[in-house]
């Protein structure tokens, strides 16, 4: 087993009487693509917020990139990247300005931002669009760009919250190629999605139901275990019994 970069032990978050995340325990190793699935309201977002150092757990432990989620949230934030479907880039800034801004807040030096920015723009084939406003780009390009920006500072882990929602099937696959390449370089990918075929692209996946992790294994093992032909069926079998949703 490779070195673990995310470790959680009975991690719990309560809001009053409501247990949003209930004693979840798992490990994710370096360079792994980890799919974090669950029905709406199962507690995914709450769990992800704790792992990113945005919310303090009620009990349990977790360590992210070797840092403690209670005491070292600042170090955690320096070592992770984050991208969500809803917010990722500033629409009213140009591609270059976004790169400079996000490079800047992660403390990259100017020459380094320029060098990385140029490479990023070249890799994405955005040379013509570098000085255009991000708002003018098609959704698929935006999502690819914001992923690239999220890993600009070479984080150990990148958290992706439904990164491909509403993106066309071809761009979606290009996006996953970028994820694979980042994983090959040793970046750990922690991703949520509603597309069950994307769950298959993950090395391992966990499925949360009512605040608990109900299943955690490779897609192939899960399908075998549930006697299902597709991940869709596995998900359905697990989540159908859910008591709550958002």
């Amino acid at each position: 087993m490779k070195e673990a970069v995310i470790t959680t032990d009975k991690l719990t978050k309560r809001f009053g009487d409501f247990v949003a995340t209930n004693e979840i325990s798992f490990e994710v190793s370096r360079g792994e693509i980890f799919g974090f699935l669950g029905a709406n309201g199962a507690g995914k977002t709450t769990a992800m917020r704790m792992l990113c150092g945005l919310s303090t757990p009620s009990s349990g432990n977790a360590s992210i990139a070797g840092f403690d989620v209670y005491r070292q949230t600042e170090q955690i934030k320096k070592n992770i990247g984050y991208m969500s479907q809803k917010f990722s880039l500033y629409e009213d800034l140009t591609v270059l300005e976004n790169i400079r801004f996000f490079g800047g807040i992660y403390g990259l030096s100017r020459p380094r931002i320029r060098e990385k920015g140029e490479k990023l723009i070249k890799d994405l084939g955005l040379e013509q669009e570098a000085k255009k406003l991000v708002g003018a780009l098609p959704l698929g390009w935006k999502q690819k760009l914001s992923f690239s920006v999220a890993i600009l500072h070479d984080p150990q882990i990148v958290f992706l919250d439904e990164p491909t929602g509403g993106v066309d099937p071809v761009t979606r696959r290009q996006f996953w190629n970028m994820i694979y390449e980042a994983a090959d370089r040793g970046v750990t990918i922690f991703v949520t999605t509603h597309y069950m075929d994307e769950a298959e692209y993950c090395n391992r996946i966990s499925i949360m139901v009512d605040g608990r992790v109900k299943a955690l294994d490779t897609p192939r093992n899960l399908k075998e275990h549930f006697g299902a032909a597709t991940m869709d069926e596995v998900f359905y079998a697990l989540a159908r019994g859910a008591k709550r949703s958002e």
Partner: protein
Amino acid sequence: MEAVRTTHLKKTYHGKTAVDEVSLTIEQGELFGLIGPDGAGKTSIFRMLTTLLLPDGGAAAVDGLDVVKDYRQIRKRVGYMPGKFSLYPDLSVEENLNFFATVFNTTVAANYTLIKDIYVQLEPFKKRRAGKLSGGMKQKLALCCALIHKPTVLFLDEPTTGVDPVSRKEFWEMLQQLKAQHITILVSTPYMDEASLCDKVALIQQGKILSVDTPAAIVASYPQPLYAARANEMHQLLKALQQSADVRSSYGFGEFAHVSFKDTDIDIASFETILAKKGLTDIEIRPTPVTIEDCFIERLNSQA
């Protein structure tokens, strides 16, 4: 008579074409899917058909009524659930339903049979405020509100976006039940797998219709035999396929990679050996049924 007909329908925003000469015909009683990614123009088409937007070119008719001239009549007959529709969170389930019934000049009792199957699931929570309902329940209530005046055509704009697979499945089951009541339903979705649940679908990208037909016919029109490939390492497999001169197209598809070959009579066994030489193991390639998503990718690639 068709329930919906558009001819060369066009919409531009600040010089950008959002809907590009779209011509569609939807028969009465049909469950019609408009399938494409975000930004393809689905919402613009819905808004033009529901008389909320004026077309910049072409024409459209709902129930034989012109969307520009006869907008008042259309507004009396159609049901519409916008993509971001969220009801009134501070009104209760009952109050929401009664409100929309009155706005549409009817009562809940008058059309109760239509929504009965859905509403019985909501009944235990009828005093609860809509904002406090679960996601799935909100959606059911929204559907009830859109149905309360017994519309002839029901427009559902991305009702399942961002919804988990279980709720999506339930929602489609409700639509099948409605179809049995002879309501024409036009539904848009970015999820390709939902296409097979429609009577007829139109694939749309960047404002243009790529194809319109029954799901079966679209799948049948796929030009080549399609194979599903699997190996010990997915990413390496995809790279190897991409680099191979024999491969026409290849892309990940769930746990498999879908592949079509330039030579339709290719010897699969020898191709597997080539892959094995690149260090891949557990290679398995077999014919696989074509899906709507494969067709969509095919159309996009052939356009590019």
